[in-house]
């Protein structure tokens, strides 16, 4: 009995800790600043779309949104391509170079890519890759390659060897085996990894902060920082931008919940 009460209490507290802030943000995006300050937790007087209108009119939020979509999807796509090829090759090779390569990739797993912020910034400055989507995509790929290779390698290793051997006897090249056998089989793993990468890239702040200064090149999280600019600050606009940045994720989450959870835990379970 006591256990049940305590359990219910604990679960309710944590649930409220998530629900209440969410409601403050959702309601806040329909309120004026004055309403937010005077009654942060109440329902808005009316569901006015003024903040959204202002945000669309005065900021480049559409552009930022488009930038985020472009950078994120390109990064995810190329990372998956490279990582799956590498993982497939590494899972089939047993020689020394494969081992060294794998060890070096693991290093990138243990040491977060942010330790490279200074040399990368300098390198990209020299290569004129600042303020460029190409540069940002490259960074995203490199920072997420190790974890993706890790997840996918352990997946490929679990695939039964016989599958490959049959095709090898047929004389198929390693590329053919990769494309016609490994790839189709790895769909669920790739899907999970894709979501994992999507969330990381979509939400990343550090590298856009370092590499992007031009307003029309900014991604959403970076653009949101501008709302917390030096002189003009408005929580109604901040909440509205939080909504715009989060709603696509929430919709994806609710419709593809299973693969989402699989994806966002894959990195840890497999790693």
């Amino acid at each position, binding site marked *: 009995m006591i256990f049940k009460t305590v*359990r219910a209490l*604990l*679960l309710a507290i*944590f*649930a409220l800790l*998530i629900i*209440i*802030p969410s409601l*403050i943000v959702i309601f806040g995006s329909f309120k004026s600043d004055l309403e937010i300050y005077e009654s*942060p*937790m109440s329902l808005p007087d009316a569901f006015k779309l003024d903040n959204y209108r202002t945000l669309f009119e005065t900021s480049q939020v559409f552009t930022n949104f488009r930038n985020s979509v472009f950078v994120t999807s390109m990064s995810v796509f190329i990372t998956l391509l490279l990582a799956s*090829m*590498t993982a*497939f*090759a590494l899972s089939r*090779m047993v020689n020394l170079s*494969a081992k060294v390569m794998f060890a*070096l*990739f693991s290093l*990138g797993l*243990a*040491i*977060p*890519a*942010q*330790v*490279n*912020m*200074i*040399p990368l*910034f*300098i390198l990209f400055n020299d290569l004129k890759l600042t303020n460029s989507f190409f540069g940002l995509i*490259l*960074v995203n790929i*490199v*920072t997420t*390659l*190790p974890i993706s290779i890790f997840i996918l390698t352990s997946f490929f290793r679990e695939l039964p060897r016989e599958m490959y051997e049959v095709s090898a006897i047929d004389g198929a090249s390693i*590329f053919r085996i990769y494309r016609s056998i490994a790839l189709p089989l790895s769909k669920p793993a790739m899907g999970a990894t894709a979501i994992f990468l999507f*969330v990381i890239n979509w*939400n990343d*702040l550090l590298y856009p*902060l*370092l590499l992007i200064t031009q307003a029309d090149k900014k991604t959403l*999280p970076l653009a*949101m*920082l501008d709302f*917390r600019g030096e002189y003009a600050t408005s929580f109604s606009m901040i*909440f509205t931008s*939080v909504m715009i*940045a*989060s709603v696509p*994720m929430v919709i994806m989450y609710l419709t593809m919940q299973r693969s*989402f*959870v699989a994806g*966002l*835990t894959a990195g*840890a*379970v497999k*790693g």
Partner: protein
Amino acid sequence: MSVPAFLLYAFLYLYPALNNLRFSTTRWDGIVEPEFVGLRNFSNLMTNDDLFFKVMGNNIRFTLLVVIFQTGFSLLFAILLLKNSRGNVFLRTLYFFPTILSSVSVAMIWLFLYDPNWGAINIFFNKIGLEAFALNWLGSETSALYAIVFSQVWFHTGQMMVIYIAGLQQIPAELYEAAEVDGANRWQQFRSVTWPMALPTTAVVIAYTTIQSFRAFDLIYTMTLGGPNNSTNIFSTLIYLTAFNEFRFGYAAAQTIFMVLMILFLTWLQRRILRTKY
């Protein structure tokens, strides 16, 4: 087949990482030619930089607290929500929800909640008559780091909980049945079955949480910029501010090397501790 990825990785991860070593022996403002200073940056860091040690302390405290609380809460909620009942699945979905938000969004939300005058937290404590709990959350050196720890735990507990649930559901039911037959109570069942069986998952959760805590840059950068009085400054924010606010790139590279050493040490330590426990 693995060559393209490796070349890219070598050029944009390994090569810059090694460059840190080169930069760390210079004094450089990022504009004029770097000046070679040998090991002076390192000796300064070790002997003449109180801030660096403060930051190291902050980072250790931050990582430790996040690891303890995030692992503890995620295990607790995983146990409470282990059965696949409808209500449990709903709560899992809810708890997982913060994970999909961007860290800037999370930071903005908590920045508002923590506001001493306008924030929901202090309004709540004042309303229920617990004025003593209505603190100057992010504005006071004594509470700011803890406030950010709380936000970080809020952010990722759901994610770790799901990992735990996956792990705990692998534990054979017979083990619990046997324990029950032995007359073990809930706590004893936890001690004798759940905890030892979940150790591998715990290892994964702790390793992941540690790395995640080093990534708290976004939260801290958005919420406090390392303040007040550097009480929330951790390695990543310190390095960023040293390089891009003070234009001391060489010094920041030297700081980076210490950060790498510390991460390697922590990883080694964790492996050791968890290995002895298996």
